[in-house]
Protein backbone atom coordinates (compact mmCIF):
# COMPACT_ATOMS: atom_id res chain seq x y z
CA UNK A 1 0.00 0.00 0.00
CA UNK A 2 2.74 2.38 1.01
CA UNK A 3 4.81 1.51 -2.01
CA UNK A 4 1.92 1.92 -4.42
CA UNK A 5 1.32 5.37 -2.91
CA UNK A 6 4.99 6.21 -3.43
CA UNK A 7 4.76 5.01 -7.00
CA UNK A 8 1.64 7.11 -7.64
CA UNK A 9 3.26 10.29 -6.32
CA UNK A 10 6.47 9.61 -8.20
CA UNK A 11 4.63 9.06 -11.47
CA UNK A 12 2.53 12.22 -11.07
CA UNK A 13 5.64 14.30 -10.47
CA UNK A 14 7.33 12.56 -13.38
CA UNK A 15 4.42 13.71 -15.55
CA UNK A 16 5.20 17.27 -14.42
CA UNK A 17 8.87 16.79 -15.30
CA UNK A 18 7.91 15.33 -18.67
CA UNK A 19 5.65 18.32 -19.32
CA UNK A 20 8.54 20.72 -18.75
CA UNK A 21 10.96 18.66 -20.85
CA UNK A 22 9.96 19.92 -24.32
CA UNK A 23 9.95 23.49 -23.02
CA UNK A 24 13.14 23.65 -20.96
CA UNK A 25 15.18 20.69 -22.14
CA UNK A 26 14.54 21.01 -25.85
CA UNK A 27 13.63 24.63 -26.52
CA UNK A 28 15.66 26.25 -23.75
CA UNK A 29 12.74 28.28 -22.43
CA UNK A 30 12.43 28.33 -18.67
CA UNK A 31 9.10 28.64 -16.99
CA UNK A 32 8.99 29.32 -13.28
CA UNK A 33 5.21 29.33 -13.61
CA UNK A 34 4.74 25.66 -14.34
CA UNK A 35 3.47 25.34 -10.79
CA UNK A 36 0.72 27.79 -11.74
CA UNK A 37 -0.48 25.53 -14.55
CA UNK A 38 -0.39 22.55 -12.23
CA UNK A 39 -2.45 24.54 -9.72
CA UNK A 40 -4.87 25.66 -12.44
CA UNK A 41 -5.38 22.05 -13.49
CA UNK A 42 -5.80 20.80 -9.95
CA UNK A 43 -8.21 23.55 -8.94
CA UNK A 44 -10.31 23.34 -12.10
CA UNK A 45 -10.68 19.61 -11.67
CA UNK A 46 -11.54 19.92 -7.99
CA UNK A 47 -14.02 22.77 -8.43
CA UNK A 48 -15.60 21.07 -11.44
CA UNK A 49 -16.32 17.87 -9.55
CA UNK A 50 -17.21 19.36 -6.18
CA UNK A 51 -19.17 22.50 -7.03
CA UNK A 52 -20.55 21.78 -10.49
CA UNK A 53 -20.92 18.01 -9.98
CA UNK A 54 -19.21 17.18 -13.26
CA UNK A 55 -17.85 13.67 -13.75
CA UNK A 56 -14.05 13.51 -13.23
CA UNK A 57 -13.30 12.80 -16.90
CA UNK A 58 -15.01 16.01 -18.01
CA UNK A 59 -13.36 17.98 -15.18
CA UNK A 60 -9.97 16.77 -16.40
CA UNK A 61 -10.74 17.94 -19.93
CA UNK A 62 -11.93 21.28 -18.59
CA UNK A 63 -8.69 21.52 -16.60
CA UNK A 64 -6.64 20.99 -19.76
CA UNK A 65 -8.69 23.65 -21.60
CA UNK A 66 -8.20 26.25 -18.85
CA UNK A 67 -4.50 25.37 -18.70
CA UNK A 68 -4.27 26.07 -22.43
CA UNK A 69 -6.06 29.41 -21.99
CA UNK A 70 -3.58 30.34 -19.26
CA UNK A 71 -0.74 29.35 -21.55
CA UNK A 72 -2.07 31.62 -24.31
CA UNK A 73 -2.44 34.56 -21.90
CA UNK A 74 1.16 34.24 -20.72
CA UNK A 75 2.75 33.01 -23.90
CA UNK A 76 1.41 35.38 -26.55
CA UNK A 77 2.85 38.64 -25.14
CA UNK A 78 6.11 37.21 -23.77
CA UNK A 79 7.37 34.66 -26.28
CA UNK A 80 7.92 37.36 -28.88
CA UNK A 81 10.53 38.92 -26.61
CA UNK A 82 13.85 37.73 -25.27
CA UNK A 83 13.72 34.55 -23.19
CA UNK A 84 14.31 36.39 -19.93
CA UNK A 85 10.99 38.19 -20.21
CA UNK A 86 9.22 34.88 -20.58
CA UNK A 87 11.00 33.53 -17.53
CA UNK A 88 10.28 36.55 -15.36
CA UNK A 89 6.66 36.86 -16.43
CA UNK A 90 5.96 33.19 -15.78
CA UNK A 91 7.41 33.78 -12.32
CA UNK A 92 5.02 36.71 -11.87
CA UNK A 93 2.18 34.64 -13.32
CA UNK A 94 2.67 31.93 -10.72
CA UNK A 95 2.48 34.52 -7.96
CA UNK A 96 -0.60 36.02 -9.61
CA UNK A 97 -2.36 32.65 -9.74
CA UNK A 98 -1.49 32.05 -6.10
CA UNK A 99 -2.91 35.45 -5.14
CA UNK A 100 -6.02 34.75 -7.23
CA UNK A 101 -6.57 31.41 -5.53
CA UNK A 102 -6.27 33.05 -2.13
CA UNK A 103 -8.57 35.89 -3.15
CA UNK A 104 -11.42 33.87 -4.70
CA UNK A 105 -12.00 32.17 -1.36
CA UNK A 106 -15.66 31.26 -1.86
CA UNK A 107 -14.73 29.26 -4.97
CA UNK A 108 -11.29 27.94 -4.04
CA UNK A 109 -11.43 27.79 -0.26
CA UNK A 110 -8.65 30.38 0.02
CA UNK A 111 -5.71 29.43 2.19
CA UNK A 112 -7.65 26.46 3.59
CA UNK A 113 -7.53 24.74 0.22
CA UNK A 114 -10.06 22.20 -1.01
CA UNK A 115 -10.49 18.94 0.85
CA UNK A 116 -12.69 15.97 0.13
CA UNK A 117 -12.06 15.70 -3.60
CA UNK A 118 -13.28 12.28 -4.76
CA UNK A 119 -10.56 9.69 -5.35
CA UNK A 120 -10.72 9.17 -9.09
CA UNK A 121 -7.13 8.63 -10.19
CA UNK A 122 -5.63 5.38 -8.98
CA UNK A 123 -2.37 3.78 -9.92
CA UNK A 124 -3.60 2.27 -13.23
CA UNK A 125 -4.77 5.63 -14.64
CA UNK A 126 -1.64 7.43 -13.48
CA UNK A 127 0.70 4.75 -14.80
CA UNK A 128 -1.04 4.64 -18.17
CA UNK A 129 -0.99 8.45 -18.40
CA UNK A 130 2.71 8.59 -17.56
CA UNK A 131 3.53 5.92 -20.13
CA UNK A 132 1.39 7.51 -22.84
CA UNK A 133 2.89 10.95 -22.20
CA UNK A 134 6.37 9.46 -22.17
CA UNK A 135 5.85 7.79 -25.53
CA UNK A 136 4.19 10.88 -26.95
CA UNK A 137 7.25 12.97 -26.08
CA UNK A 138 9.56 10.17 -27.20
CA UNK A 139 7.84 10.33 -30.57
CA UNK A 140 8.15 14.07 -30.69
CA UNK A 141 11.83 13.41 -30.16
CA UNK A 142 12.07 11.84 -33.59
CA UNK A 143 10.16 14.49 -35.48
CA UNK A 144 11.03 17.76 -37.11
CA UNK A 145 9.31 19.35 -34.15
CA UNK A 146 12.18 18.37 -31.87
CA UNK A 147 14.86 19.44 -34.34
CA UNK A 148 13.16 22.82 -34.59
CA UNK A 149 13.09 23.05 -30.79
CA UNK A 150 16.78 22.29 -30.49
CA UNK A 151 17.59 24.72 -33.28
CA UNK A 152 15.72 27.45 -31.38
CA UNK A 153 17.55 26.55 -28.19
CA UNK A 154 20.95 26.71 -29.81
CA UNK A 155 20.53 29.70 -32.09
CA UNK A 156 17.26 31.50 -32.40
CA UNK A 157 18.38 33.95 -35.05
CA UNK A 158 19.73 31.27 -37.35
CA UNK A 159 16.54 29.25 -36.92
CA UNK A 160 14.50 32.23 -37.99
CA UNK A 161 16.79 32.72 -40.94
CA UNK A 162 16.05 29.21 -42.26
CA UNK A 163 12.39 30.13 -42.35
CA UNK A 164 11.04 28.54 -39.19
CA UNK A 165 8.43 30.64 -37.43
CA UNK A 166 10.17 30.80 -34.07
CA UNK A 167 7.39 32.67 -32.29
CA UNK A 168 4.67 30.28 -33.39
CA UNK A 169 6.83 27.27 -32.61
CA UNK A 170 7.56 28.53 -29.10
CA UNK A 171 3.85 29.09 -28.50
CA UNK A 172 3.11 25.53 -29.62
CA UNK A 173 5.73 24.10 -27.28
CA UNK A 174 4.56 26.22 -24.38
CA UNK A 175 0.91 25.28 -24.83
CA UNK A 176 1.82 21.62 -25.13
CA UNK A 177 3.72 21.89 -21.87
CA UNK A 178 0.99 23.89 -20.12
CA UNK A 179 -1.70 21.40 -21.11
CA UNK A 180 0.29 18.38 -19.91
CA UNK A 181 1.00 20.22 -16.66
CA UNK A 182 -2.68 21.00 -16.17
CA UNK A 183 -3.53 17.37 -16.87
CA UNK A 184 -0.97 16.27 -14.30
CA UNK A 185 -2.40 18.77 -11.85
CA UNK A 186 -5.89 17.33 -12.33
CA UNK A 187 -4.52 13.84 -11.68
CA UNK A 188 -2.79 15.20 -8.58
CA UNK A 189 -6.07 16.61 -7.25
CA UNK A 190 -7.93 13.35 -7.86
CA UNK A 191 -5.14 11.35 -6.28
CA UNK A 192 -4.23 13.39 -3.21
CA UNK A 193 -7.83 14.48 -2.53
CA UNK A 194 -6.55 17.71 -0.98
CA UNK A 195 -5.05 20.82 -2.60
CA UNK A 196 -4.02 24.24 -1.33
CA UNK A 197 -2.53 27.32 -3.05
CA UNK A 198 0.97 26.97 -1.61
CA UNK A 199 1.59 23.44 -2.87
CA UNK A 200 3.18 24.57 -6.11
CA UNK A 201 5.39 27.58 -5.60
CA UNK A 202 8.22 28.75 -7.86
CA UNK A 203 10.61 26.39 -6.11
CA UNK A 204 8.64 23.37 -7.33
CA UNK A 205 8.78 24.76 -10.86
CA UNK A 206 12.51 25.38 -10.48
CA UNK A 207 13.03 21.81 -9.29
CA UNK A 208 11.38 20.47 -12.44
CA UNK A 209 13.91 22.41 -14.53
CA UNK A 210 16.83 21.38 -12.34
CA UNK A 211 15.91 17.69 -12.57
CA UNK A 212 15.92 17.95 -16.36
CA UNK A 213 19.41 19.43 -16.34
CA UNK A 214 20.77 16.85 -13.89
CA UNK A 215 19.22 14.01 -15.83
CA UNK A 216 20.55 15.27 -19.14
CA UNK A 217 18.61 17.63 -21.33
CA UNK A 218 19.11 15.63 -24.52
CA UNK A 219 18.04 12.30 -23.10
CA UNK A 220 14.36 11.80 -22.35
CA UNK A 221 14.99 8.49 -20.61
CA UNK A 222 17.70 10.10 -18.48
CA UNK A 223 15.31 12.83 -17.39
CA UNK A 224 12.63 10.27 -16.59
CA UNK A 225 15.08 8.15 -14.59
CA UNK A 226 16.30 11.15 -12.67
CA UNK A 227 12.79 12.29 -11.77
CA UNK A 228 11.80 8.77 -10.66
CA UNK A 229 14.92 8.52 -8.49
CA UNK A 230 14.46 11.98 -7.01
CA UNK A 231 10.78 11.74 -6.15
CA UNK A 232 10.97 8.13 -4.93
CA UNK A 233 13.72 9.12 -2.54
CA UNK A 234 11.67 12.10 -1.44
CA UNK A 235 8.67 9.95 -0.60
CA UNK A 236 10.61 7.16 1.10
CA UNK A 237 12.83 9.48 3.14
CA UNK A 238 10.24 12.12 3.87
CA UNK A 239 11.97 13.33 7.04
CA UNK A 240 15.03 14.34 5.06
CA UNK A 241 13.18 16.14 2.26
CA UNK A 242 14.88 19.51 2.81
CA UNK A 243 18.34 17.97 2.76
CA UNK A 244 17.38 16.09 -0.38
CA UNK A 245 16.88 19.43 -2.14
CA UNK A 246 20.26 20.64 -0.89
CA UNK A 247 21.92 17.54 -2.30
CA UNK A 248 20.11 18.03 -5.59
CA UNK A 249 21.26 21.65 -5.71
CA UNK A 250 24.90 20.88 -5.13
CA UNK A 251 24.63 17.99 -7.58
CA UNK A 252 23.31 20.18 -10.39
CA UNK A 253 26.13 22.71 -10.02
CA UNK A 254 28.76 19.97 -10.05
CA UNK A 255 27.08 18.21 -12.97
CA UNK A 256 26.80 21.38 -15.07
CA UNK A 257 30.47 22.14 -14.51
CA UNK A 258 31.98 18.69 -14.96
CA UNK A 259 29.41 16.70 -16.91
CA UNK A 260 27.29 19.15 -18.92
CA UNK A 261 25.48 16.41 -20.83
CA UNK A 262 23.83 15.36 -17.56
CA UNK A 263 24.14 12.27 -15.37
CA UNK A 264 22.30 9.97 -17.76
CA UNK A 265 22.74 12.17 -20.79
CA UNK A 266 24.50 9.59 -22.91
CA UNK A 267 21.73 6.99 -22.76
CA UNK A 268 20.33 6.56 -26.23
CA UNK A 269 16.94 5.00 -26.52
CA UNK A 270 15.03 3.34 -29.32
CA UNK A 271 11.27 3.57 -29.14
CA UNK A 272 8.59 2.45 -31.56
CA UNK A 273 7.56 5.39 -33.69
CA UNK A 274 4.00 6.50 -34.28
CA UNK A 275 3.78 9.33 -36.78
CA UNK A 276 1.70 12.29 -35.70
CA UNK A 277 0.83 14.09 -38.91
CA UNK A 278 0.56 17.52 -37.29
CA UNK A 279 4.10 17.24 -35.97
CA UNK A 280 5.65 16.27 -39.28
CA UNK A 281 4.95 19.49 -41.12
CA UNK A 282 7.78 21.93 -41.65
Amino acid at each position, binding site marked *: MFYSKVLETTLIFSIFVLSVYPLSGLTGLFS*LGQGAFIAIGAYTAAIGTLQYKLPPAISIMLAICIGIIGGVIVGVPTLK*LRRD*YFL*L*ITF*GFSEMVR*ALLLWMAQLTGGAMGIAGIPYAAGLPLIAISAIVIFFFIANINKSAFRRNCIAIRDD*ELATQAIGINVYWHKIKVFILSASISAYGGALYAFNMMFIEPNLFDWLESAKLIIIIFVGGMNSLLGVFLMSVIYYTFGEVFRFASVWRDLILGVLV*IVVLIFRPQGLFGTIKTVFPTIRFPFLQKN
Partner: protein
Amino acid sequence: MNRDVIIQQILNGISLGGVYALEAVGFGIVFNILKFSNFSHGGVVTICAYVGFFISTRFIPSLWVSLALTILFGGIIGVLVEKLVFRPIRVQNKPLTYFFVNSITVAMIVQQFFSALWGSNYYPFPIFIKESVFQLGKLVVSKSYLVMLSMSAAVLIALSLFLRRTKTGISIRAASSDIHTPALMGVNTDFIVSITFSIAGILAGVTGFFLGMTYTVTPFIGSMILKGIIASIIGGMGSLGGGVIAGVLLGAMESLLIAEVGASVTPIIIYFAIIVLLMVRPQGIAGKLYSVKA
Protein backbone atom coordinates in the same frame (compact mmCIF):
# COMPACT_ATOMS: atom_id res chain seq x y z
CA MET B 1 -10.06 58.71 0.22
CA ASN B 2 -8.75 62.10 1.13
CA ARG B 3 -5.59 63.74 -0.07
CA ASP B 4 -3.58 63.35 3.14
CA VAL B 5 -4.06 59.59 3.18
CA ILE B 6 -2.94 59.38 -0.44
CA ILE B 7 0.19 61.45 0.21
CA GLN B 8 0.87 59.40 3.33
CA GLN B 9 0.64 56.15 1.38
CA ILE B 10 2.85 57.48 -1.38
CA LEU B 11 5.46 58.50 1.21
CA ASN B 12 5.46 55.03 2.74
CA GLY B 13 5.52 53.47 -0.69
CA ILE B 14 8.49 55.48 -1.86
CA SER B 15 10.68 54.26 0.98
CA LEU B 16 9.82 50.64 0.20
CA GLY B 17 10.29 51.53 -3.45
CA GLY B 18 13.85 52.51 -2.61
CA VAL B 19 14.47 48.91 -1.59
CA TYR B 20 12.85 47.66 -4.80
CA ALA B 21 15.11 50.03 -6.71
CA LEU B 22 18.16 48.53 -4.98
CA GLU B 23 16.96 45.06 -5.95
CA ALA B 24 16.32 46.12 -9.52
CA VAL B 25 19.82 47.62 -9.83
CA GLY B 26 21.49 44.61 -8.21
CA PHE B 27 19.62 42.34 -10.59
CA GLY B 28 20.16 44.58 -13.61
CA ILE B 29 23.89 45.15 -13.21
CA VAL B 30 24.63 41.43 -13.57
CA PHE B 31 22.12 41.14 -16.38
CA ASN B 32 23.97 43.91 -18.18
CA ILE B 33 27.31 42.18 -18.12
CA LEU B 34 26.49 38.49 -18.48
CA LYS B 35 23.00 38.80 -20.04
CA PHE B 36 21.22 36.24 -17.90
CA SER B 37 18.54 36.54 -15.21
CA ASN B 38 20.46 36.24 -12.00
CA PHE B 39 18.15 34.57 -9.53
CA SER B 40 21.03 33.90 -7.16
CA HIS B 41 20.66 37.57 -6.24
CA GLY B 42 17.61 36.55 -4.19
CA GLY B 43 19.75 33.94 -2.46
CA VAL B 44 22.42 36.50 -1.59
CA VAL B 45 19.68 38.80 -0.26
CA THR B 46 18.46 35.98 1.99
CA ILE B 47 21.97 35.25 3.28
CA CYS B 48 22.49 38.95 4.03
CA ALA B 49 19.18 39.21 5.87
CA TYR B 50 20.22 36.34 8.14
CA VAL B 51 23.72 37.73 8.60
CA GLY B 52 22.31 41.15 9.45
CA PHE B 53 19.93 39.54 11.91
CA PHE B 54 22.68 37.58 13.67
CA ILE B 55 25.14 40.45 13.81
CA SER B 56 22.57 42.88 15.19
CA THR B 57 21.03 40.52 17.74
CA ARG B 58 24.05 38.53 18.89
CA PHE B 59 27.00 40.87 18.56
CA ILE B 60 26.54 44.57 17.87
CA PRO B 61 23.07 45.97 18.46
CA SER B 62 23.78 49.12 16.50
CA LEU B 63 22.10 50.03 13.24
CA TRP B 64 25.04 51.54 11.38
CA VAL B 65 27.74 49.08 12.46
CA SER B 66 25.66 46.01 11.70
CA LEU B 67 24.52 47.51 8.41
CA ALA B 68 28.13 48.21 7.40
CA LEU B 69 29.21 44.68 8.37
CA THR B 70 26.29 43.18 6.45
CA ILE B 71 27.19 45.19 3.36
CA LEU B 72 30.80 44.03 3.59
CA PHE B 73 29.67 40.45 4.00
CA GLY B 74 27.30 40.80 1.04
CA GLY B 75 30.13 41.93 -1.20
CA ILE B 76 32.24 38.93 -0.19
CA ILE B 77 29.34 36.50 -0.70
CA GLY B 78 28.69 37.97 -4.14
CA VAL B 79 32.26 37.34 -5.25
CA LEU B 80 32.24 33.89 -3.68
CA VAL B 81 29.09 32.88 -5.58
CA GLU B 82 30.63 34.15 -8.80
CA LYS B 83 33.90 32.27 -8.28
CA LEU B 84 32.30 29.00 -7.20
CA VAL B 85 29.26 28.82 -9.42
CA PHE B 86 29.56 31.06 -12.47
CA ARG B 87 33.30 31.26 -13.13
CA PRO B 88 33.69 27.54 -14.00
CA ILE B 89 30.96 27.62 -16.65
CA ARG B 90 32.02 31.02 -17.97
CA VAL B 91 35.53 29.74 -18.57
CA GLN B 92 34.07 26.89 -20.62
CA ASN B 93 31.98 29.33 -22.70
CA LYS B 94 28.73 27.56 -21.89
CA PRO B 95 25.39 28.83 -23.23
CA LEU B 96 23.34 31.24 -21.13
CA THR B 97 20.87 28.55 -20.09
CA TYR B 98 23.55 27.01 -17.90
CA PHE B 99 24.10 30.31 -16.11
CA PHE B 100 20.42 30.58 -15.44
CA VAL B 101 20.07 27.02 -14.15
CA ASN B 102 23.03 27.55 -11.83
CA SER B 103 21.65 30.84 -10.54
CA ILE B 104 18.26 29.36 -9.76
CA THR B 105 19.99 26.44 -8.07
CA VAL B 106 21.86 28.83 -5.80
CA ALA B 107 18.55 30.46 -4.85
CA MET B 108 17.08 27.05 -4.08
CA ILE B 109 20.11 25.89 -2.07
CA VAL B 110 20.05 29.04 0.07
CA GLN B 111 16.32 28.82 0.77
CA GLN B 112 16.44 25.11 1.63
CA PHE B 113 19.61 25.51 3.68
CA PHE B 114 18.06 28.09 5.95
CA SER B 115 14.78 26.13 6.13
CA ALA B 116 16.71 23.03 7.15
CA LEU B 117 18.89 24.80 9.67
CA TRP B 118 16.47 27.11 11.40
CA GLY B 119 13.10 25.98 10.15
CA SER B 120 10.55 28.28 8.60
CA ASN B 121 10.47 30.42 11.74
CA TYR B 122 10.26 34.18 11.80
CA TYR B 123 13.15 36.14 13.23
CA PRO B 124 12.38 39.77 14.00
CA PHE B 125 15.17 42.33 13.85
CA PRO B 126 15.83 44.34 17.02
CA ILE B 127 14.19 47.75 17.11
CA PHE B 128 16.98 50.17 16.30
CA ILE B 129 15.16 53.45 16.44
CA LYS B 130 13.26 53.97 19.69
CA GLU B 131 11.26 57.09 18.97
CA SER B 132 10.01 55.77 15.68
CA VAL B 133 7.94 58.54 14.08
CA PHE B 134 7.80 62.30 13.79
CA GLN B 135 4.98 64.54 12.63
CA LEU B 136 5.24 66.64 9.51
CA GLY B 137 2.06 68.66 9.46
CA LYS B 138 -0.66 66.05 9.12
CA LEU B 139 1.79 63.47 7.82
CA VAL B 140 3.46 60.83 9.93
CA VAL B 141 6.96 59.93 8.80
CA SER B 142 8.48 56.75 10.17
CA LYS B 143 12.13 57.23 11.04
CA SER B 144 13.19 53.77 9.97
CA TYR B 145 11.55 54.40 6.59
CA LEU B 146 13.47 57.66 6.37
CA VAL B 147 16.73 55.85 7.13
CA MET B 148 15.90 53.27 4.48
CA LEU B 149 15.10 55.88 1.87
CA SER B 150 18.17 58.01 2.51
CA MET B 151 20.45 54.99 2.67
CA SER B 152 19.07 53.58 -0.59
CA ALA B 153 19.53 56.96 -2.25
CA ALA B 154 23.07 57.27 -0.92
CA VAL B 155 24.02 53.80 -2.17
CA LEU B 156 22.54 54.44 -5.59
CA ILE B 157 24.28 57.83 -5.93
CA ALA B 158 27.58 56.30 -4.83
CA LEU B 159 27.12 53.52 -7.37
CA SER B 160 26.35 55.96 -10.16
CA LEU B 161 29.45 58.03 -9.27
CA PHE B 162 31.51 54.85 -9.22
CA LEU B 163 30.22 53.79 -12.63
CA ARG B 164 30.87 57.20 -14.17
CA ARG B 165 34.05 58.46 -12.55
CA THR B 166 36.36 55.54 -11.87
CA LYS B 167 38.29 53.51 -14.38
CA THR B 168 36.77 50.25 -13.12
CA GLY B 169 33.30 51.73 -13.38
CA ILE B 170 33.91 52.77 -16.96
CA SER B 171 35.16 49.29 -17.79
CA ILE B 172 31.98 47.84 -16.28
CA ARG B 173 29.91 50.09 -18.50
CA ALA B 174 31.99 49.14 -21.51
CA ALA B 175 31.58 45.47 -20.68
CA SER B 176 27.80 45.97 -20.46
CA SER B 177 27.57 46.78 -24.12
CA ASP B 178 29.94 44.03 -25.15
CA ILE B 179 32.01 41.86 -22.89
CA HIS B 180 34.55 40.75 -25.50
CA THR B 181 35.76 44.05 -26.89
CA PRO B 182 37.05 45.56 -23.60
CA ALA B 183 39.23 42.47 -23.21
CA LEU B 184 41.01 43.52 -26.42
CA MET B 185 41.63 46.96 -24.90
CA GLY B 186 43.48 45.48 -21.97
CA VAL B 187 40.61 45.26 -19.53
CA ASN B 188 40.75 42.26 -17.23
CA THR B 189 37.30 40.79 -17.89
CA ASP B 190 37.45 38.25 -15.05
CA PHE B 191 38.16 41.07 -12.61
CA ILE B 192 35.31 43.16 -14.02
CA VAL B 193 32.86 40.29 -13.65
CA SER B 194 34.01 39.72 -10.05
CA ILE B 195 33.64 43.43 -9.25
CA THR B 196 30.16 43.44 -10.78
CA PHE B 197 29.10 40.51 -8.63
CA SER B 198 30.53 42.15 -5.54
CA ILE B 199 28.58 45.35 -6.32
CA ALA B 200 25.45 43.23 -6.70
CA GLY B 201 26.36 41.58 -3.39
CA ILE B 202 26.74 44.94 -1.68
CA LEU B 203 23.34 46.01 -2.97
CA ALA B 204 21.96 42.67 -1.82
CA GLY B 205 23.43 43.38 1.61
CA VAL B 206 21.55 46.67 1.89
CA THR B 207 18.39 45.09 0.49
CA GLY B 208 18.53 42.09 2.80
CA PHE B 209 19.13 44.22 5.85
CA PHE B 210 16.26 46.58 5.08
CA LEU B 211 13.87 43.81 4.09
CA GLY B 212 14.69 42.04 7.33
CA MET B 213 14.10 45.29 9.20
CA THR B 214 10.76 45.99 7.51
CA TYR B 215 9.39 42.47 7.57
CA THR B 216 10.88 39.56 9.48
CA VAL B 217 13.67 37.24 8.45
CA THR B 218 12.45 33.98 6.90
CA PRO B 219 14.03 31.62 4.39
CA PHE B 220 11.52 32.92 1.83
CA ILE B 221 12.64 36.53 1.97
CA GLY B 222 14.59 35.90 -1.24
CA SER B 223 11.30 35.64 -3.14
CA MET B 224 10.88 39.35 -2.46
CA ILE B 225 13.34 39.82 -5.27
CA LEU B 226 10.39 39.31 -7.59
CA LYS B 227 9.36 42.92 -6.89
CA GLY B 228 12.83 44.09 -7.87
CA ILE B 229 12.69 42.01 -11.03
CA ILE B 230 9.29 43.46 -11.89
CA ALA B 231 10.76 46.94 -11.38
CA SER B 232 13.63 45.92 -13.63
CA ILE B 233 11.18 44.90 -16.38
CA ILE B 234 9.12 48.09 -16.05
CA GLY B 235 12.29 50.15 -16.18
CA GLY B 236 13.56 48.34 -19.23
CA MET B 237 15.76 45.31 -18.69
CA GLY B 238 19.34 46.23 -17.97
CA SER B 239 18.74 49.95 -17.65
CA LEU B 240 19.83 50.89 -14.14
CA GLY B 241 18.27 54.36 -14.12
CA GLY B 242 14.99 53.03 -15.45
CA GLY B 243 15.06 50.35 -12.77
CA VAL B 244 15.43 52.95 -10.02
CA ILE B 245 12.52 55.05 -11.30
CA ALA B 246 10.38 51.96 -11.78
CA GLY B 247 11.25 50.64 -8.33
CA VAL B 248 10.13 53.83 -6.61
CA LEU B 249 7.00 54.00 -8.77
CA LEU B 250 6.19 50.38 -8.04
CA GLY B 251 6.56 50.91 -4.31
CA ALA B 252 4.27 53.96 -4.36
CA MET B 253 1.74 52.19 -6.61
CA GLU B 254 1.74 49.14 -4.40
CA SER B 255 1.04 50.91 -1.13
CA LEU B 256 -1.63 53.07 -2.78
CA LEU B 257 -3.32 49.96 -4.15
CA ILE B 258 -3.09 48.19 -0.81
CA ALA B 259 -4.78 51.16 0.86
CA GLU B 260 -7.39 51.40 -1.88
CA VAL B 261 -8.36 47.83 -2.78
CA GLY B 262 -6.68 45.66 -0.14
CA ALA B 263 -3.59 43.51 0.10
CA SER B 264 -5.09 40.40 -1.47
CA VAL B 265 -6.04 41.97 -4.80
CA THR B 266 -2.92 44.13 -5.18
CA PRO B 267 -0.57 41.39 -6.48
CA ILE B 268 -3.20 40.30 -9.00
CA ILE B 269 -3.52 43.84 -10.37
CA ILE B 270 0.25 44.41 -10.45
CA TYR B 271 1.14 41.19 -12.26
CA PHE B 272 -1.71 41.56 -14.69
CA ALA B 273 -0.57 45.13 -15.39
CA ILE B 274 2.93 43.81 -16.14
CA ILE B 275 1.59 41.34 -18.71
CA VAL B 276 -0.39 44.15 -20.36
CA LEU B 277 2.67 46.42 -20.26
CA LEU B 278 4.75 43.80 -22.05
CA MET B 279 2.13 43.65 -24.79
CA VAL B 280 2.05 47.41 -25.21
CA ARG B 281 5.55 48.62 -24.43
CA PRO B 282 8.01 45.79 -23.81
CA GLN B 283 11.00 48.13 -23.81
CA GLY B 284 9.93 49.69 -20.51
CA ILE B 285 10.59 53.20 -19.26
CA ALA B 286 14.12 53.47 -20.58
CA GLY B 287 13.15 52.16 -23.97
CA LYS B 288 15.94 49.61 -24.00
CA LEU B 289 14.96 46.31 -25.56
CA TYR B 290 17.34 43.41 -25.46
CA SER B 291 16.87 41.08 -28.33
CA VAL B 292 18.71 37.99 -29.34
CA LYS B 293 21.97 38.77 -31.07
CA ALA B 294 23.94 36.49 -33.27
